[in-house]
């Protein structure tokens, strides 16, 4: 039966036949093994097969479009089999695949006492915890785009995933998708090839909503754009035990542009134990959430830009930049032409309980002070701490302040900047 379906598809591809009617499961599994096929799957929920607790992964061929059918992307769901580890979808090196109009259910609460923290038995992060079985989160991946592959995601919903990196892709376009309720990170774009994230939502993921990374030098780094996207109360569970950002720009990540997106932390601070979050223990001390967290040496192979984003309600700072090597921050973005504020990041940042800054720079050992810092027409107001704070990185260098800034609170600058003093205005746009 399945061989017949594959045969039909091969003949169809040879004749240049276009989109097929939706296929049943067997036909669809055959279809995705034929290069350059567009494969729609009938509506319904499909639990993937497993063998000895290991998922039998889908391995699409090059050029395949895997898509659901029905009235919405929630009409067709691929579900992880209960308690099974391994990849749901594996994309081989050199392969380009598009996944569209589907939902992936990570089924995290089917894992007893482990990834999903379905019972009140411990923290179950990578460092384990009392009564916890230490497990390798890296064995639970929903979409595993191997090195050199390109994975495009369009109108895909991914939720209830258990792994540390449930969606791991080297490059590609992610648009109109949604990543919710992961135990850990949402997608991780590795940046080997250019990547783009448009109109995508990240909510209530356990750690960062989105992680942008880069391969070790000398691999080329594609530029990555994040645009028109929503980040809301990510780092909800803090399953790695530490504070961090809703968007995580990794060590060395370069040529990233983040613009016209919305980072709302909903004033989240993890509760002190023994209060649980999704039945999992929180970190031992309360932790706050930053809007955008930018790590050391990022920007070293092409400066990063954070332009025209609304960044509010984050208790760990609006933008938190650590020993960066090239960063432009502005309240304005060119596309679409708009301005937005870093504002109302209020309360105190735990565990030190210092007032929450709008934009803060911190030098991290052993990386030293930030370099290549440009602050262009910054709009920062209504934060409980400083509008801009170089107090933790007093020797940060770079072009410095450019244009007119709206800083409706005090600021601390770095005298090592080429332009160390901002031209401020009280008339904010």
């Amino acid at each position, binding site marked *: 039966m399945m061989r017949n379906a594959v045969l039909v598809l091969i003949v169809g591809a040879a004749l240049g036949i276009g989109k097929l009617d939706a296929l049943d499961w067997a036909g669809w599994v055959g279809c995705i093994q034929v290069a350059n096929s567009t494969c729609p799957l009938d509506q319904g929920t499909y639990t993937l097969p497993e063998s000895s607790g290991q998922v039998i992964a889908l391995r699409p061929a090059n050029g395949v479009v895997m898509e659901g059918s*029905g009235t919405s992307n929630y009409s067709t769901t691929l579900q992880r089999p209960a308690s099974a580890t391994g990849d749901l979808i594996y994309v081989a090196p050199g392969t380009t695949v598009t996944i569209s109009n589907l939902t992936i259910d990570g089924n995290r609460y089917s894992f007893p006492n482990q990834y999903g923290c379905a019972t009140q038995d411990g923290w179950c992060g990578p460092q384990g915890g009392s009564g916890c079985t230490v497990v390798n989160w890296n064995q639970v991946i929903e979409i595993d785009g191997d090195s050199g592959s390109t994975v495009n995601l*369009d109108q895909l919903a991914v939720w209830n995933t258990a792994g540390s990196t449930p969606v791991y892709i080297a490059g590609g376009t992610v648009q109109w998708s949604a990543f919710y309720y992961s135990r850990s990170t949402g997608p991780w774009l590795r940046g080997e090839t250019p990547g783009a994230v448009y109109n995508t939502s990240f909510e209530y993921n356990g750690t960062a909503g989105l992680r942008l990374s880069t391969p070790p030098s000398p691999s080329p780094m594609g530029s990555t754009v994040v645009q028109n996207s929503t980040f809301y109360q990510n780092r909800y569970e803090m399953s790695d035990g530490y504070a961090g950002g809703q968007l995580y720009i990794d060590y060395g990540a370069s040529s990233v542009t983040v613009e016209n997106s919305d980072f709302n932390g909903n004033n989240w601070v993890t509760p002190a134990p023994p209060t649980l979050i999704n039945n999992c223990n929180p970190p031992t001390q309360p932790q706050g959430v930053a809007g955008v967290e930018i790590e050391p040496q990022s920007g070293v192979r092409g400066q990063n830009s954070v332009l025209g984003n609304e960044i509010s309600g984050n208790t760990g700072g609006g933008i938190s930049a650590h020993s960066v090597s090239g960063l432009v921050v502005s309240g304005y973005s060119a596309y*679409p032409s708009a301005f937005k504020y870093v504002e109302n990041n209020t309360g105190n940042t735990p565990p030190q309980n210092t007032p929450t800054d709008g934009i803060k720079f911190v030098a991290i050992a052993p990386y030293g002070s930030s370099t290549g810092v440009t602050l262009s027409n910054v709009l920062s107001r209504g934060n409980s701490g400083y509008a801009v704070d170089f107090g933790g990185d007093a020797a940060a260098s770079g072009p410095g302040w450019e244009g007119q800034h709206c800083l409706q609170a005090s600021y601390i600058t770095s005298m090592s900047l080429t332009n160390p003093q901002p031209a401020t205005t009280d008339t904010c746009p």
Partner: protein
Amino acid sequence: MQLLVGSKVRSGLLFFAIGACPLVRGQSALAGPMSVAQIHYFASFFERVGSPDVPAAVDTVQERSVARIFDMDDAESAQLHAAAQEYRAEMAKLRSEETALVSGKSSLDASDRAALSSLIQARDRLVASAAQALLSSIRTATASRIMSDAGQTIRLRARIGVN
């Protein structure tokens, strides 16, 4: 805001004329009938702010966020809210019918597929009506920002092989 969706979604016509919608007010950002690609764009748009398959609180977050992203003022945000609410209610009916059609079946026969096709057509009518109503009730500049985004999405979808 009232969307043009019949209560009997499967009894609708196979084809429809967007321009005939009597509830469209003012100048729409769309010069003529919506293309399939534009309907697909607005299906994504309204699923983001009004999907019945996610908790209402999630939709509310998205609705507020989309209003900020497209620089909507308070009146436009209210229009978006109304459109999202209507979309959510009507889509819930379509999703309910769809689920009833496929549940418990290991394969779909021709009549199932025909019924599902009708539901998708009803979804398209809902999306087109909601989009026209929204676009005609907001400022030209705001509508232009949305249509510019639609253009970008459509180009990207063509590039990655999604209609």
